[in-house]
Structures are given as structure tokens and as C-alpha cells.
């Protein structure tokens, strides 16, 4: 790891020297931002976006905490420092897609991504596109898409951010971010280190002493290097390197005497992204190489599971605009995945190729977008997936949006190749989803309000389940189930700012409620399923709220979430309320800025679990300090 860090520093930190013409860059960025919207906008669906630099008011350390507290997305957390996956609109972890600069981070072996491994500051912007999006992003974009995007900060400057956090249960976080910008080049190096004992005491039962969690140590190191280079007037090349190492012990369940299990995740992600940006068109070519390894060992039960994969993904797309009224996008992608798993008898190679077309039309207060995607996996055609979305601002205070799409998920390599039980004849899960939203934004004085409500409906056929195979002592993967999800998502937001100056008083409130009914539609004996039964780990009711008060140098924030009763693997999981408090004070002097913050998590000391048998910590604290230095000489504003 030391060698890798060293080589990154040598290659990228020192040779920053090139400066360019201001006006050209200004023009190009506008076109680029406009172009991006074709894919990122997901017209007709609900999108949220967070600029990382604006997230000071939120007590979140990683992406799973952010998404959970800000969007009402259910995060299935196995405990502090442990695996965390998302469930959006009643799907499972494999029904969401996590993209890093447009390429999927999902493990092709497991079909999911551990969100606890994604530090919040690893990118500059995080977005959430809810609803089906396979027509644009392909396999897995059924429940929603979490986007992580690196963004340049051109302009002649140097910046340094150092952040250190100390927390309960022996948790320490250190972050270092060094930025080096010119007019034509911008580089940023980010290093994140995290370690924790996570030896919290948890409630067992009334009258019983608390039990201390053991074997829960985690350590994680992320080194990220981004480099953006404007070549001439029209070309930009971006390089991204992300090295990750995570070593964590797997704590015992609350019905296990002890555990000595351990999991090590290693990943290397490289990406080169070239864009040729013109007034009326953009040509883009991207290549990404991801290599990941997961070693799981539980010597207590002689269980050793080793797996790795390498994926080489390339994409070429052309976007064409006509006076910002019509836009089209054509994209071709190909990915080659090679995997090894000691549970397989072969080392599978998976080839995925896809062609995608999108058309966007905008006129006055009306927007329309349609897309279609055809994918080929190892020579087999995946169902053709179209989508159609619109956005109609009937009045400035009343907007109507809607979207219809077909979506799919390709079986994981485990589903296809696990020995025994993997089924190479599995079909992709697929189905249609529909959604509609009405929103009512309005302003009274200095206060901005918005009410909205979204209704969605989604059916997925060929839902893959592992079930006993006829006459075999092991289970196999089958396309046996159907799941019907539908729900309502009302939202309310309020923002007030007394003045435009920095010393103003600002109040920011966001409240949301999710009603999600996601039911099995096929009865089965084993695994036991009944028609109309809510699928596991999907609470019927969820609500969240956040209120943030900013005044002068102080930010106070309170987040509250309610997770209703859900069915689990072993029975019902009780509902719970969780509150998080954040207090922050910042001060600045010339180019220096410092921030001190205190997070009080689970502030009401609630005993709760998200996943059965996996205890969660009571009230715990994070005290942090951040120091920033920025000597901007010239900032480009767009």
C-alpha cells in the first residue's frame, strides 16, 4: 500500500504547471453541464443531489449515513462498521445501482455494494435518482441509482483540508485532501483513514447485564487521486484512481458466543474519461478498470471464502444538441468481467455489451425524455428496455412529473456459477415501473416551501430466489418469484434565510414519509412465501426529518428517522426512532478556516436493530476538527 501511495504522489502531485484561457473554459463547462443532464436528469423521477462541500450540517461519515438520513432510503446495516446495503422502494440491495463517475461499483459476484466502504468525501457530488433507470444505466437500476461524481475545481489555487475525528468505541477518522489547480489542470489527492474498536455495550433483555461487542475492529484506508486536464480548446481528459483497503473483524451475532471471523476487501479502480466538447455536440470516451478482492475467513468453522474480480468497462457516447431544445445521446458500452471464487468450478468470464439511445425535448414549461437500451450478455439478448419521462410545470407553483420504464437486473455470478446450485440458465429479473409526482413549490417572503407527493408502482418478474432443488440436498437459484411494489412518498421542505450575507439566520427543514408495500406474488413452501406478504427488510412505514439552524458561525442540526416494523429473516423487527444531533462551529481568518463539530448519534439511546441478531450501538459521539486552507487566486464561476 505504501508503494501505491508513493507512486500516486510522484505521478500526480508534482507536475502541475499548465494554465489556460479563461473564456474558453467558461464556455465549455456550460455546454458540458448541459450535456450531462441527459443522463443525470432522469426526467419524470425524483432526484436528489448533494454537494459534499455543503454537507457540513449533516452528521454523516459515509454515503450510507447520508442517504439514510437525507432521503428516507432504508439502509440495511449489520452494525457499526459492518456491511450496509440499501433498499430503495422495496427492492433488495441488488436492485440499486451505485455509480462512480458513471460506471457501476456493484460487485458482479454478489450484485451489491457495501455502502459503508464509501467515504463521504471521496467524491464532490452525490446524487440519488429514485425509480427505474435501466434504460439509461443498465442492469440493477430498478429501485434507484446512487451516483458518486468527481468534479474538477479549475482555477489557480492550492488547497489543503485536514480533518480528524475521534469517536466513541475507539473510532478515529483522519482525512487529508490536497488540491492543486490551474486554469487547465486540476488535481486533488484524498486520503481517508478510519479505524475503530466498535466494542460498544448493547442491551440484551430487561434484567440482564449489557453485553459488550467483541471482534468488531475495523480499519479502512482509501487513497483517491483525481486529475483533470483541459487539452486545447475542446478536449478534456480526466483520470481517477481509487485504492481501497479494508480490514474488519466480523463480530458475533447476539446469539453467538464469540466470533473470530474476518473480512478483507481490497480494490483498485482506475478510470480515464475523455471528452471532446463543442457548441452543439459532445463526444465522450471512457475506460475503467476495476479490480476487487474479498477474503472472508471464519477459522472457528473452517470457512474460507476467497473471491476476486476484474472488470474492464469502456464506453463511447455522442451527445448532440439543437439550441438546447432537442438533445440526443447515443452510447455504446462494453464490459468484460473475469472472476475467481473458490465456490466456483470455473473462472467465469462475462461479456456485456449495450447500446443506448436517448432523446430529450424541451419547450417552454414542458420537458420530455425517452430512452431505449438493448444489452447483450454473453451472447444472450436482455429484454429491450425503454423509458419515457416528462416534466410539466403547469404553473410556477405547480409541477407534474411522470415516468414509465422497463428495468432489469442481470443475475449475479454467484447466482450463475456457485457450486453447487448456480444456474447458468437464469433469466434476468425484469419488469415495468411507473411513477408520478405533483409538487407545489412556493415562496412567502424569505421563506421557500415545497410540498410534493410521488406515487409509484413496480412489478418485477423472474425475481431470483435460492430454493431447494428437486432431489438435491443443496439449494439452487431459480427465477421463481414475482414482487409487486407500490407506494407513496410525500415530502415537505422549508428554507428560510434572513439575509444573503454570511451572518444571516438560516433555517432548513426537510420532512418525508414513505409508505412502501412490496409484496411477494408467488407462494412458495421453501423458502416460505405467501402471496401478498411484505418482503423481508422492507418496512411498510418510514419517516425522516431534519431541521438545521445556521446562525453566524454556528450550525445546529437535528435529524430524526422512524423505521416502522418490518419482517426479517427470523420474525418481525420492531419499529424504532433514531435521533442524531450535530453541533458545529467554524471560524476563519483570511485563507484559513477551521471547523469543530460534535455529532451525538442515536441521541435518545434507543435499543434497536436493523438486521436481526446484529446489535446496534446506543448513544455515541464523534468529535471532529477540520482545518482548511485555500489560496484561490482566480475562481471560475459558471
Amino acid at each position, binding site marked *: 500500500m505504501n508503494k501505491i501511495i508513493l507512486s500516486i504522489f510522484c505521478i500526480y502531485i508534482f507536475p502541475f504547471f499548465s494554465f489556460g484561457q479563461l473564456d474558453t473554459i467558461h464556455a465549455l463547462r456550460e455546454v458540458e453541464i448541459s450535456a450531462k443532464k441527459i443522463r443525470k436528469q432522469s426526467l419524470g423521477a425524483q432526484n436528489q443531489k448533494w454537494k459534499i462541500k455543503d454537507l457540513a450540517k449533516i452528521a454523516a461519515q459515509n454515503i450510507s449515513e447520508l442517504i439514510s438520513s437525507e432521503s428516507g432510503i432504508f439502509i440495511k446495516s449489520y452494525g457499526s462498521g459492518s456491511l450496509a446495503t440499501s433498499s430503495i422502494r422495496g427492492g433488495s440491495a441488488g436492485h440499486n445501482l451505485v455509480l462512480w463517475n458513471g460506471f457501476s461499483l456493484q460487485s458482479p459476484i454478489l450484485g451489491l455494494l457495501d455502502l459503508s466502504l464509501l467515504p463521504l468525501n471521496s467524491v464532490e457530488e452525490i446524487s440519488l435518482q429514485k425509480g427505474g433507470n435501466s434504460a439509461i444505466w443498465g442492469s440493477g437500476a430498478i429501485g434507484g441509482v446512487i451516483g458518486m461524481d468527481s468534479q474538477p475545481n479549475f482555477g489557480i489555487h492550492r488547497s489543503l483540508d485536514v480533518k480528524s475525528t475521534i469517536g466513541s468505541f475507539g473510532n478515529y477518522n483522519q482525512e487529508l485532501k490536497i488540491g492543486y489547480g490551474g486554469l487547465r489542470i486540476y488535481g486533488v489527492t484524498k486520503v481517508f483513514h478510519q479505524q475503530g474498536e466498535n466494542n460498544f455495550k448493547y442491551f440484551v433483555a430487561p434484567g440482564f447485564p449489557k453485553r459488550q461487542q467483541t471482534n468488531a475492529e475495523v480499519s479502512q484506508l482509501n487513497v483517491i487521486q483525481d486529475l483533470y486536464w483541459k487539452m486545447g480548446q475542446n478536449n478534456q481528459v480526466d483520470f481517477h484512481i481509487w485504492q481501497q483497503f479494508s480490514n474488519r473483524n466480523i463480530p458475533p451475532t447476539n446469539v*453467538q*458466543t464469540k466470533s473470530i471471523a474476518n473480512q478483507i476487501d481490497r480494490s483498485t479502480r482506475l478510470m480515464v474519461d475523455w471528452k471532446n466538447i463543442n457548441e452543439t455536440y459532445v463526444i465522450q470516451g471512457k475506460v475503467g478498470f476495476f479490480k476487487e478482492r474479498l477474503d472472508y475467513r*471464519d477459522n472457528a468453522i*473452517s470457512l474460507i471464502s476467497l473471491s476476486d474480480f476484474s472488470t474492464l468497462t469502456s464506453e463511447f457516447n455522442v451527445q448532440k444538441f439543437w439550441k438546447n431544445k432537442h438533445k440526443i445521446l447515443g452510447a455504446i458500452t462494453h464490459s468484460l468481467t473475469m472472476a475467481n471464487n473458490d465456490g466456483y468450478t470455473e473462472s467465469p468470464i462475462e461479456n456485456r455489451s449495450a447500446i443506448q439511445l436517448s432523446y430529450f425535448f424541451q419547450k417552454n414549461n414542458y420537458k420530455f425524455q425517452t430512452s431505449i437500451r438493448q444489452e447483450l450478455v454473453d451472447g444472450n439478448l436482455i429484454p429491450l428496455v425503454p423509458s419515457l419521462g416528462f416534466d410539466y410545470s403547469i404553473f410556477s407553483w405547480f409541477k407534474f412529473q411522470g415516468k414509465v420504464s422497463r428495468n432489469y437486473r442481470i443475475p449475479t455470478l454467484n447466482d450463475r456459477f456457485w457450486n453447487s446450485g448456480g444456474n447458468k440458465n437464469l433469466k434476468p429479473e425484469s419488469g415495468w415501473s411507473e411513477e408520478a409526482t405533483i409538487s407545489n413549490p412556493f415562496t412567502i417572503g424569505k421563506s421557500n416551501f415545497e410540498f410534493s407527493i410521488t406515487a409509484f408502482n413496480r412489478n418485477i418478474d423472474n425475481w431470483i*430466489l435460492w430454493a431447494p432443488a428437486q432431489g*438435491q*440436498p443443496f439449494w439452487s437459484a431459480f427465477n421463481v418469484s414475482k414482487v409487486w411494489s407500490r407506494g407513496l412518498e410525500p415530502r415537505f421542505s422549508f428554507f428560510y434565510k434572513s439575509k444573503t450575507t454570511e451572518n444571516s439566520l438560516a433555517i432548513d427543514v426537510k420532512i418525508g414519509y414513505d409508505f412502501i408495500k412490496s409484496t411477494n406474488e408467488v407462494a412458495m413452501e421453501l423458502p416460505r412465501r405467501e402471496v401478498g406478504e411484505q418482503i423481508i427488510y422492507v418496512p411498510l412505514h418510514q419517516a425522516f426529518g431534519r431541521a438545521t439552524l445556521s446562525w453566524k458561525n454556528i450550525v445546529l442540526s437535528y435529524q430524526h428517522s422512524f423505521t416502522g416494523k418490518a419482517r426479517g429473516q427470523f420474525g418481525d423487527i420492531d419499529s424504532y426512532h433514531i435521533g442524531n444531533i450535530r453541533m458545529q462551529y467554524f471560524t476563519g481568518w483570511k485563507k484559513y478556516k477551521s471547523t469543530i463539530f460534535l455529532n451525538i448519534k442515536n441521541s435518545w439511546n434507543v435499543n434497536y436493530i436493523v438486521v436481526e441478531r446484529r446489535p446496534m450501538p446506543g448513544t455515541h459521539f464523534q468529535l471532529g476538527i477540520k482545518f482548511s486552507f485555500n489560496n484561490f487566486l482566480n475562481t471560475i464561476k459558471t
Partner: protein
Amino acid sequence: MKKIFTFLLTLSSLLVIAQTTSDFENYGIPVDSVLNGSDGVHNFNSGNISLFNEYFPSWGGWGGWVISASTDISTAGYTNDFSSITGGGVDNSLTYAVTYAPYGSIIKLENDAQGEIVNGVYVTNGTYAFLSMTDGDGFAKKFGGATGDDEDYFLLTIKKYLGGTLSSDSVNFYLADYRFADNSQDYIVDEWTWVDLTSLGQADSLEFSLSSTDNSSNYGMNTPAYFAIDNVITSDGLVAVENVEPKSLFEIYPNPTTDFLILKNLEQERAEVSIFDMTGRLMSNNSLNNFKNEINIHNLAKGTYLVKVQTETKVASQLLIKQ
């Protein structure tokens, strides 16, 4: 294999129910070895039962039954899925059978035992299941749960097939039972325990199935679906044998004796010798393989015993005095 006999009538010609014990010792496998089908043999026979095995060379897994002489009672996890928690068979014998029964396992009755009553079977936990229930393993729970108060159980249910029909009657045996109000009475079976199956009546085969209080909706039963058996005693139906004078069938000496006796098998046919105390309790049972056989009776208390020798067609008895 051992045969014992129960007298029904005491006539010159009498009817007996012959009993055959399936103890798997006939495989003669060395200690800490296992027959799991990897050698291509997928049907095990002992006494009058047969056990079916499946083996999957691609991943080294097996289903159905294995014949085991494993003594490993400490290794947790699925790699030790062929051990019994006793580390050996009944009465310190070497060999026993283990089954993986997620959807039930079958014992087929063969030969004379087919369609007859099964007396019973010795049962105990597999090491994998025992240690999983004792400590939990990340997949399955520690029985009793976090507080020790969870009313868990691991239940073996035995039913019979006769004429192709599965009976509704069953015999239940708790391989672990944590349902007692007093937690000190909770137990996980760690010894060979006799399960009487006579109440099932006549059978062609027996079905053993497992259930537990630890189940997941996605994966079914979490408790490892393993248990071990030994000394399955089947009955071979009524057999007519001629009651003959002892001297025409065998000869024993010295009598009285102290530690051993010599038994001459005069007809030199396949025969079994059984020694009963005067209450009719079976004290020992041996095959007579030679003309002249030495039988150790060192463990018998002083007193008078009945020595009974039976061939396929004849039976005779004589008193023996141990001093």
C-alpha cells in the same frame, strides 16, 4: 451385525422373532475415516438396512448418509459434518452413520426386516449441529438465545413408509430441548440415546426429518441438519426353530467358571450365542465364527446364567454358573 432372539413359545419346535442389529462395524473402516461416497459407493448395507448416499465430486459435498469412524468432537463448522458428538459408536464401538437431512433421510429395510417392526435406534447429535447449538456460528443461533431463555428445540421426527404410504404416526425425539422453565434442565443430546420405534409398527422404510426453532425465511432451518445413528435393531419376523438338546448343538466348559468359557459349535453352522441372566436380561451376544470359541465373561457378576445358541434351524440352552 448381531442377531438376538426373543422366545415366544417353549415347545420342541418354537417361534422366535429374530432381531438384527445394524452397527456398521461390517465396514471395518479405520479410526477417523469416513465413507462419504467419494469412492463411488453410494449404498451402504449393514444388517438388514440400507442407507443411500450422494456425493458431489465438484465440491466434495455429500447428501444422504455416510459411514463414519470420526472421533473429532471439537472442530466446529461444516468441514466436520461427518462426526458424532460422542466421537464413536454405541458402547465405544468405532463405527456409526451420520446423515444430512435437510428434507428428510430414509433408512430402507431389507431382506427379512422388510415389512417388519423396527425395535429402535440409538441416536445422538452430529458434532457440527451440537457445537452450532452450543455456541452459535454466525448463521445459526446459540440455543437459548442471548438470555438463555429462548425456548429452542431441535427435533427429530421419525415416520414409516409401508406399502408406499407415509404414516401419520410418528416418534419424536428431541436432540436438543431448551423449553424448560428451569434453564438448568435444558439439554443438547451428547450421548447415544435409545429411541424405541416399535410404536410405528411394520415398515418398509423409515423417514427421519429434522426441525428446529431456528429458521430463516430465506434459507429454512439454520440449525445444521445433521444427526448420527448406530445399532439400528430390526426384527426379521417370526422364525420357526427346533428346540434341541444342548449336547447336540454345542458344548461349554469349564462350568462353573470364573472369567471365560470355551464354547464348541458342534454343528459348525452359522450361529449366535446369547447369555441371559436369570431375569431374562440379555448380557452378551456374539457370533460363533469358529468350532472352538472363547467367550470372555469377566464382566458378569457371580451367579447363574442361561447360555443360548441358535442356528437358523435349531436352538438350545444350557445353564452356566459363574463363580
